[in-house]
Structure formats: C-alpha cells, structure tokens
C-alpha cells in the first residue's frame, strides 16, 4: 500500500485477510466491485491473527478483514493503534460439534474439548460455553488475550485442548468436543446444523473491514464500504458463502 500518495489519487489498494472464506470474500465479493470503480486491488492472505493488524498499522495494508469489534478494540488499545471499522460483513457462526454427544446435556464430566489456540477465536468459544452455562469467565476476561485460564468455574470439568483453528474440523473426530469457527466448518463441508450449539452472534462479534483511523475519511474507504453494500456483494454471499450469518444492516436492508 502506498500510504504516501494523496487520498484523491489512491487507486491501488492492498487488503489483507486470513486464509479461507474472508480472503475469498475480499477476492470474490469486494475486489470485483472496487475494480469497476477503477481500483487495482491486491489481496494478501495471512495465516495468523496478529500480522494483518500490524501490517495495517505499518501502512503495508490499506484495509483488512478478519476480526470482530471486540478484538479490534483490544488490539488497538494494547498496541496503541488507531483502528476503525468500516463495515460489518457476513460472518459464519462458531459451533460446538461432537461425534460423541448428541446434546450439551449429554456431555460427560471431564470431556476433552478442542478449542482454537488463538485468542480471537478462543474468546468466542468461551463465550458460547459461558452462555450455555458450562463455564463462567473471570471478570478480567479480555478477548484479545483470552485463554483457557480465564475460566473461573468449570461445571463439567472440561479439559481444554487449544489447537490451531484450521485444524479444528479435523479434530471433531478425534476428540469429545470441538469448537469450530464457522468459516473452517464450512470449508470442511461440515453442516452447521450438526452443531450442538451455534454462536448467537451479536454484531460486535461479526467480522468487519478495518482501516487506520487516519484513513477513515479517504475516498477509498468510502468505496470499500460501498462495495460491501452493493447488491453484487450480497449476491456473491448468497451464492458462495451459504451459512454465513448476515449482519444487521444487511438483514434490515432486505426486510425493507
């Protein structure tokens, strides 16, 4: 990204996203619209949740798409960055899956649960478990640094096994329970409805396009926002990202 060129002239965008549906979403949904607007867009894929923000802050990226609001805010605070969201995009809900148990009630004492090892996804997993009453979380819980240590009360004494998020669909078979992020579940052709429980996702846990706050008023940010709001984008979502939970703005628009 050429952060130094003046806003008016900026027609070359570098957008970062994590490997999988979110980079596909950029490539297939956002990039074509932006290109029509005369931009050239380069999509950079990351297999990690730290680098996309650092790269954004350093100006190597103009925007990224991989994180939810809570993570963004904590990250910005921790690293003393000025990050701002542009628009929320459809996000696949995380689910707790199991080949052993049919329902949450059936979970046995001391079962093993595979959870993501990165804090973003782990936080979501913990929140599901908390909302289902399986655990309670410490007051110090912070999505940025969430870890299995934040569990205060563990009703069924679940044994947490943090593993790489992309590996979780493959872990369903080998462990008692697995908290699988929706994007990977879909990639692995799992049926989201097989989940014992799916994330009820408030918008603050949906992923969004994020830019540096200093860029917020620049035309390209507006253009990205417009691209996401375009009909074409939603058509791509309906076509290729089945099962992704749409954000409120999209649902509301459709209601009209």
């Amino acid at each position, binding site marked *: 990204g050429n952060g130094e060129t003046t806003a008016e002239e900026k027609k070359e965008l570098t957008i970062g996203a994590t490997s999988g549906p979110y980079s596909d979403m950029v490539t297939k949904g956002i990039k074509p619209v932006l290109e029509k607007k005369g931009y050239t867009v380069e999509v950079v894929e990351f297999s990690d*949740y*730290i680098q996309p923000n650092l790269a954004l802050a350093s100006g190597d990226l103009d925007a990224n798409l991989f994180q939810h609001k809570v993570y963004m805010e904590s990250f910005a605070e*921790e690293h003393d960055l000025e990050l701002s969201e542009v628009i929320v995009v459809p996000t696949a809900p995380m689910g707790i899956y199991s080949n052993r148990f049919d329902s949450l009630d059936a979970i046995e004492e001391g079962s093993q649960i*595979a959870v993501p*090892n*990165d*804090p973003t996804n782990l936080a979501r997993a913990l929140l599901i478990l908390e909302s289902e009453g399986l655990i309670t979380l410490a007051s110090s819980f912070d999505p*940025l*640094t969430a*870890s299995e240590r934040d569990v205060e009360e563990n009703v069924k004494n679940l044994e947490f*096994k*943090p*593993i*790489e998020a992309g*590996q979780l669909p*493959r*872990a369903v*078979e*080998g*462990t008692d329970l697995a908290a699988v992020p929706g994007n990977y579940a879909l990639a692995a052709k799992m049926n989201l409805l097989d989940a014992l429980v799916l994330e009820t996702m408030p918008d603050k846990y949906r992923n969004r396009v994020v830019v540096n706050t200093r860029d917020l008023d620049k035309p390209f940010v507006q253009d990205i926002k417009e691209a996401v709001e375009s009909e074409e984008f939603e058509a791509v979502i309906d076509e290729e990202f089945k099962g992704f939970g749409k954000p409120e703005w999209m649902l509301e628009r459709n209601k009209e």
Partner: protein
Amino acid sequence: MLLDRLAELVPELNQAFLETMYMVSISLAVAIMGGLPLGILLFVTDRGLFLENPVVKSAAGFVVNMVRSVPFIILLVALLPFTRWLTGTTIGPTAASVSLSIAAIPFFARIVESSLREIDRGVIEAAISVGASPWMIIKDVLLPDARPGIIHGITITTISLVGYSAMAGIVGGGGIGDLAIRFGYYRYDNTIMITTVVILICLVQLIQFLGDRIARLTDKR
C-alpha cells in the same frame, strides 16, 4: 512482582518443558531408528559402493525427498489417519510426535548419508578385502568411523526438532515453543515470552554442549 509472576508460572513451564522433552525424545528416537538405516541405505547403494544398486538408491532417494518436500502442516494433516491408527488420538503431544518423527526421519537420513560420504574409501576397501559382509562393514567400519559426524548430525536434528516442536501447537501438542507462541505471541505476555525463550536457549545450548562433548569423546582421529 515479576518473581511472583514467574513463581506462578512454574507448574505450567514445568509441564511445557516435559512436553517438549517428551516430543523431542520420541521424535529423535524415531528419527534415529528410521533415519540411520535409511541414510546408510542411501550411501551404500550409491555408485561405486559395495551394495551399488541404482534402483534402490533412486527409490529411497525419492521417498526421502517426497517427505521432505511436503510442508510440515500438510504432512501433519496427511498423517492424521495414520496418527489416529497409531496413537488413538490426533491431538496432544503424542499425536504431534508422530508427524515430527516422520518429518525428522528423512532429514536425519540425509545428514547420515552426508557423514558417511566423508569416510575414506580405502578403509572400506580394507574391510572388503578381509571378506567382511556388507552388514559387518556397516556396523564395524562405517558407523564407528562416521560416529563424530553422525553425532553432530544428531545435535543438528535435535535442535531442529526443538524448533519444529513449537509447531506442535497446531495439534495441541504443547511444549515450551507452543507456550511461547500462544502466550508470548498471541497474548502479548512478555514475561512468558522471555521466560520461555530463555528456557529454549538454555535447552539448545545444553544440547549443543552435550553433542559437542560426545562427538569429541568419540572422535579418535
């Protein structure tokens, strides 16, 4: 305060340390048991050697290179069914050891091959001239004479395994490296990060020291 923090970490570090030792020892053992014969095979079937056999040589070379070409994470996925069959699980340190071992075998085999190449051909000839069987030449000439080189190779492999074992985190293998990544990297806990890195440095220095020591003791040149 920092000390308090550290004291609090001790059990966790302890466990991670044991996990690392566990994974590295298993994979090292397998790497040696698998890589040593494989490396010897690569050497003795080579042109001009006493078990020259281009077909076996190429086949072994191909298999070794194949395993070495596949990125570790893909290897890990490809091995999942095998891992499950072997260990009954696909996560945890034992499961991680399977892919670490499989990745280390061909690496170590190449290092062994490379050490064997340095042996003076004349000594092998002398062994041939007394009518020794290939097995005896391997056991009593090649291995003893390449020992310092092989021990250096073991040191290099062990240290590489310590590094690679950090990737065990992908399947929840745990270990010091994974701790460093999970807490130090993802969760910005500098205490853990620095502590684990210091532990890793000490561990690696120790391995190097022992390796050098043993190599020197066995070096009769």
